């Protein structure tokens, strides 16, 4: 596989070891004993906000996280699915997952079907995206719990209804296998080599990455910019971005059923374009519909209604570490104050927000999720955010019954339009990956989620 990767790269990469060897011989005995020049160290400058996203929920966090803990598979920008840690096989019962040989956690433990089942169960607890992905699995939590106790070569996920997009959904970073028991975290291109450092893993099933090592540096904005400009870093994550790239990191305002009128109140006063322009910034776009424009959702603002008024108080939960969420929350507070509603803001960590919102705290919550790259699984995530599992099951079963992918996507977009305004969810904006790259960086591409793929990256 390694050879294959080298073959698929540029000629520079193929000849570089040889050139290194040649230069090493020319340098004399000492140089001959040294290792030949190779992929070098990939240096990434992270803004503190990116470093705070340890779970990889933001696009930037997912890129960083993915280097050390790979998801099960990757959906390429072309739509092709690349298995990374597991291969999939459709059966009459559902979908079978086969862990790839050589997939080992950092401490050397192999990825077996029980570990895979437990990882999926854990992901369901932590992420609404994971819960949405596994929603079509029949009695998912109990099934995974049972499979987590059984050793086998194949992990079969029985489906409650047909769901052709399950493979794509399972490629989401939220379902990355991860061991939190001290057995090495995830299975990534790099394995930890000290704090903020990693070295290329030779055992990664898809083959060793081109760079030999990875260094993550958390820097201030200024310092990160200087590092990038001075070529001290190959990429800066947390700033900049390509506005034309896939933007799937969507932010919704979710309400309890009792507070749903507040969504209408806000919708009447909200200028999403101004919100994105003044408060979100970066590669972001308004999100007028439940699905982002990248997935065929509406991209123009609908007709504005007259600003409504209300009264009372409400509590809004948001993630403290996300600058855009804080700015949006403050803007919503101002808008509701103008409407006569006193909104109290309560910042907490992403984990605490997930837990507390699930426990019934707060009237409103800002939820930002990296949507899957297909309309139907993305709609499943939006429905998951509402907490209405019956509606989710009903909608997904109807969509899953459509065998044709294009038709299914169209149906999903139509349902999203129809459901908008009826669900306790107010779409706000969608963001793409905030990243700036060293212009000399070569062989960097994006996947279907808009995330950077740095496996083959190299630089002269």
């Amino acid at each position, binding site marked *: 596989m390694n050879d294959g990767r080298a073959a698929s790269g540029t000629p520079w990469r193929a000849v570089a070891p040889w050139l290194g060897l040649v230069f090493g011989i020319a340098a004399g005995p000492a140089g001959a004993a040294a290792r030949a020049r190779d992929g070098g160290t990939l240096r990434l400058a992270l803004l503190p906000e990116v470093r705070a996203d340890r779970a990889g929920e933001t696009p930037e966090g997912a890129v960083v996280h993915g280097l050390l803990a790979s998801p099960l598979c990757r959906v390429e920008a072309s739509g092709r699915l690349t298995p990374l840690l597991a291969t999939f096989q459709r059966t009459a019962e559902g979908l079978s997952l086969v862990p790839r040989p050589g997939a080992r956690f950092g401490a050397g433990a192999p990825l077996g079907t029980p570990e895979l089942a437990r990882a999926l169960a854990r992901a369901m607890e932590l992420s609404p995206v994971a819960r949405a992905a596994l929603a079509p699995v029949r009695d998912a939590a109990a099934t995974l719990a049972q499979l987590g106790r059984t050793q086998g070569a194949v992990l079969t996920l029985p489906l409650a209804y047909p769901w052709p997009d399950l493979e794509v959904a399972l490629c989401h970073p939220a379902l990355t296998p991860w061991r939190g028991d001290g057995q090495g975290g995830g299975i990534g291109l790099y394995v930890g080599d000290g704090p903020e450092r990693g070295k290329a893993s030779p055992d990664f099933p898809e083959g060793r990455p081109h760079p030999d090592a990875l260094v993550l540096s958390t820097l201030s904005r200024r310092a990160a910019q200087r590092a990038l400009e001075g070529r001290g870093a190959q990429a800066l994550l947390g700033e900049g971005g390509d506005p034309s790239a896939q933007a799937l990191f969507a932010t919704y305002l979710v309400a309890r059923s009792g507070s749903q009128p507040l969504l209408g109140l806000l919708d009447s006063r909200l200028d999403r374009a101004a919100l994105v322009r*003044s*408060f979100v910034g970066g590669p972001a776009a308004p999100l007028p519909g439940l699905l982002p424009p990248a997935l065929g959702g509406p991209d123009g603002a609908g007709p504005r209604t007259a600003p409504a008024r209300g009264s009372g108080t409400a509590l809004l939960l948001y993630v403290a570490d996300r600058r855009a969420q804080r700015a949006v929350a403050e803007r919503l*507070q*101002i808008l509701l104050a*103008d409407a006569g509603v006193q*909104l*109290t*803001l309560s910042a907490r960590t992403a984990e605490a927000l997930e837990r507390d919102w699930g426990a019934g705290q707060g009237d409103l919550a800002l939820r930002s999720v990296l949507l899957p790259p297909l309309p139907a699984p993305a709609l499943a995530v939006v429905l998951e955010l509402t907490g209405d599992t019956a509606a989710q099951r009903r909608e997904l079963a109807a969509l899953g019954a459509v065998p044709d992918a294009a038709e299914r996507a169209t149906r999903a977009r139509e349902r999203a339009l129809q459901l908008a305004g009826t669900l306790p969810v107010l779409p706000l904006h969608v963001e793409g990956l905030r990243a700036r790259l060293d212009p000399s960086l070569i062989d960097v591409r994006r996947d279907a989620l808009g995330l950077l793929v740095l496996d083959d990256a190299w630089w002269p």
Partner: protein
Amino acid sequence: MSGLRLRTLLLLAFALVALLPLVVTVPFASRRIEQTFARELSARADAAAALARAELDRLAAEVDQAVTACAQDPLAESVALQLETGVPPAADAMRGVAEGRQLSVLTLHDASGVSRSSAFLPARVGDVEPGLAAVQVGAAPVVVPVEVQRPEGVQLRPALVAARAVEAAHGAVTLVGGQVLDGAWADRLARLTGALVEIQGPSLVPESAGLAEGRTVRRVLPLGAAELSLAVGSAAVDETRATLLRALLAAGALGLGLALGAGFLFARGITRPVEALTDGVRSVAGGALDTQVRAAGSGEVRVLVDAFNRMTEDLGHATRALRAAEQAAAWEGVARSLAHELRNPLTPLQMSLETLLAARKARDPRFEVLFVESAPAMLEEVERLRRTIDVFARFARMPAARLEPLELTAWTEQTLGIAGARPNVSLRWEPGPPLEVHADRDQLAQLLHNLLKNAEEAMVAGGQVTVRTRAEGDRAVLEVEDTGPGIAAEDRARVLEPGVTSKATGSGLGLALGARIAQGHGGSLEVDAGATGGALLRLRIPRAG
């Protein structure tokens, strides 16, 4: 008692003299202190208001300077130019301009008053902020209501702000900046002025800091959109006034104490000789006629003491003279009685002897008969003489009493049981309660015998003798009452003197001896009239314990 009263009166007089100035002074002083401190409180409130005005002026100068500097800041100019070119700046781009300039309000407005970038309220970007948009460009800082964003909500608070045009943008962009007059500012002002600071106004969130206890004096400074109120409390002044009054009262109490002490000493100096004189008078009344009073004193008191001592000295001399005269009279009485007692037998004895001598000389044959007849009579008279002499000898030899515990009632009953009586005289015994006394049994028996004998002798034709005992306070009483003729009232005082008797026979020493025995027991023997008109002799002696 009179000395104690005098002393009390003197003490009260001294206390009154000490209290009088205090009673007069304290209310007056209190009123004056009250007035002084009221003026002080008012002056403090004025000073606090002046300090607050000065602080507002200083803050206005700072705001004016800082906002002018911000308007010329290259970063502000670049943001303004960015606006001119149609590129929206970041909502919080002005934060970099506000940094280090101590401004809590800083907003960039476009010509229409719409906030384009804000260092303190970026969430308002894109909206018109009425409070800030109305601030006149270039004018002195004014207080306007501004929105302040807190996690718990959006609040309206007063802010001292100034507006300046950003020159680089050719006046199309205005910078409004200033300081929110919030709790921290109120707290600073409260510490500076020592007053309770309250900031309030229509729709504003009220702020207060500091403390004003007790009565308050308030000064209000109008600030345009808000009102600044400063209240000075009287607690500290009240405390000072209370301390002063306490000190005054303590001084008064000390003065009163000293006056009472001095009064006590002075009163004692006066009353001591008076008390000594009182005791001296009591002693004189108790019989100590030559009592001398030794008391320090001066002036009239000294004269009084000396006069008293001279009087008792004279009284002592007179008493001694009187006693000597009485003794002489007593001896005369005794001699008279003795002569009488001795003379009575001598006359018949002389006549008998002369008769016998004459018969012998005349060789009268009846000599033998006369001799035989006269000799026994003569012997009887001689015997009588001897008895008289014995009685007087006993009276003279009366020994000191040997006192021992004795129950008088039981003893009397026992003694009466062995006492005989004439056949025509009956004895009636009326016992009282048990009476413990200290007495000489022999002398007491002699006394009872003399009293009984005196009663029997008084009832020649017979009668009844009643003996009774009873308690009378701390005295035991033994009474012997007869039904005889009694003793005349004018004789009762003398009948206890030696040699005095109302009877035809008797030495006149029986009752005198009884009186002497009674005195030896610390008691007395009294003569009184009985219920039937007979004599009643009453012995009173102290009870034991």
